[in-house]
């Protein structure tokens, strides 16, 4: 079977996001970008499934500006076999992304689609669920463990009150949570091989997918800043302040 993984190029998670002066969004010029950390986990999981002999090919797909090619190369350097970039300079909503992924799913017929549970830029946490709904493939979101047994996949999910497990039938959509695995570092020889792996670039317009959206960003603002408080000298002083000043205990 083939596995499709989604990889998004986002602001590096170590870099603090700064709102643009004109409030139109976040400053992304000349700042370090990297693969969405949840997507790294997704790639790692796909590779492990392949290495365990349960898949033949891992395809990394990114939807975004031309530079997203680098993100795909990172996935290829980790071990994915080929890449597909659906190129657009527009910021797409998860629904449009899910529709584009569906387009690729129809073409590639993967047995499994593994995505990150959310992207750390828009923090939406929607794409996997939407892809599942649009394609009819079952979904297993927030996965912390994936066990394959033929075309039946048992997925342990992180939910608010602990863990639950479900069984889905392949083809299915899985979204990766933090503790699914620890992504590998790309190996130098593989970084070099990655350049030679096939990477297909498709323009959004050529997919025929309608990516218009009813949602628009009016403006983006800095959050209210918390004022740093006081340093107390002792536990006794702390308890006193909590009781008599803040009155919270």
């Amino acid at each position, binding site marked *: 079977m083939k596995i499709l993984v989604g990889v998004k190029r986002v602001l590096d998670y170590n870099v603090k996001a700064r709102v643009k002066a004109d409030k139109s969004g976040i400053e992304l010029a000349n700042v370090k970008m990297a693969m969405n950390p949840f997507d790294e986990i997704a790639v790692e999981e796909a590779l492990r499934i392949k290495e365990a002999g349960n898949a033949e090919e891992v395809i990394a797909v990114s939807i975004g500006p031309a530079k997203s090619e680098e993100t795909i190369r990172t996935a290829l350097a980790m071990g994915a076999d080929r890449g597909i970039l659906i190129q657009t300079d527009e910021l797409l909503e998860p629904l449009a992304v899910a529709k584009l992924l569906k387009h690729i799913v129809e073409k590639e017929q993967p047995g499994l689609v593994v995505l990150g549970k959310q992207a750390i830029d828009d923090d939406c946490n*929607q794409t*996997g669920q939407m892809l599942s709904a649009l394609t009819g493939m079952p979904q297993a979101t927030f996965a912390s463990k994936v066990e394959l047994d033929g075309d039946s996949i048992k997925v342990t999910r992180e939910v608010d009150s*602990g*863990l639950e497990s479900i069984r889905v039938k392949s083809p299915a959509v899985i979204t990766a949570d933090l503790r699914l695995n620890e992504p590998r570092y790309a190996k130098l020889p593989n970084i070099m091989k990655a350049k030679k792996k096939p990477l297909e670039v498709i323009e959004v317009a050529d997919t025929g997918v309608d990516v218009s959206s009813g949602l628009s960003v009016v*403006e*983006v603002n800095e959050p209210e800043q918390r004022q740093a408080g006081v340093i107390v000298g002792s536990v006794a002083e702390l308890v006193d*302040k909590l009781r008599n000043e*803040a009155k919270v205990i």
Partner: protein
Amino acid sequence: MSTLILAEHEAGELRPATLSVVAAAAAIGNDIAMLVAGSNCAGVGEKAAALPGVSKVLVADDAAYEHELAENLSALVVSVAGDYTHILFAATAAGKNVMPRVAALLDVSGISDITEVKSADTFIRPIYAGNAMATVKSDDAKKIITVRTTAFDAVSDTGGSAAVESVASAGANDGVEFVGAELSSSDRPELTSAGIVVSGGRGMQNGENFAMLDEIALKLNAAVGASRAAVDAGFVPNEYQVGQTGKVVAPDLYIAVGISGAIQHLAGMKDSKVIVAINKDEEAPIFQVADYGLVADLFDAVPELSKALDA
């Protein structure tokens, strides 16, 4: 204009998150209907009918809804979506699981995690781990939304008297099957709705040391949380995690013990009313958001705090 809310419930009770979603719906200002889906959930329907502001309760009673499977719930929501202009979910693991499906099936954008209602079509939501707040406007016929429950004060659970009607099941998807759950059973308050949260980080050093926090939590009737570092290190299970990708909490008092305060953690707790930080590294970023900071070794300070709370 009218709003439909998908209720969340457990052991015959509405989850507190749902009461906050009602508050968000009230802020939007429409008639409010609530959909209660479950197996043997008539009792929950009654409780939903008692919520102030809710004018209609739809009950779908079917085994298909026992385990909150997203495929089944989304099909049900779409089947009753009719003329509702707004469909609201709590931004919980369950709500996040269903909302995008409903949006996709209705071919509209989803709006995640709103923290403020500006008008019936304009909302504020955090992006970039809360380092920025986006104001978004929806021109879609239906606004499909998850609500960050800590941003809306829960409504009371009495005072309303809605009509209850039952609706047909939309059936079960056979591509997915519930296997089991390992849920933490705790008599402590639930993390996202607790009035006080005591959280531990990597500084706790191991899982056993969390007993010190449990002791304080017991005295304060607080929930216990953790940073990602502590969860990744295996000190405590995943459901303790507070942060960008874990739970978002906003209690009256948040006590961060041995937590350095990475932005991803701050994203999950910085809206708490009072923040206390105990850390021996005075440079730790957590002190920049703390109202009261104590620079001390937690292994001295926490037992001392526990004793002081007895006094």
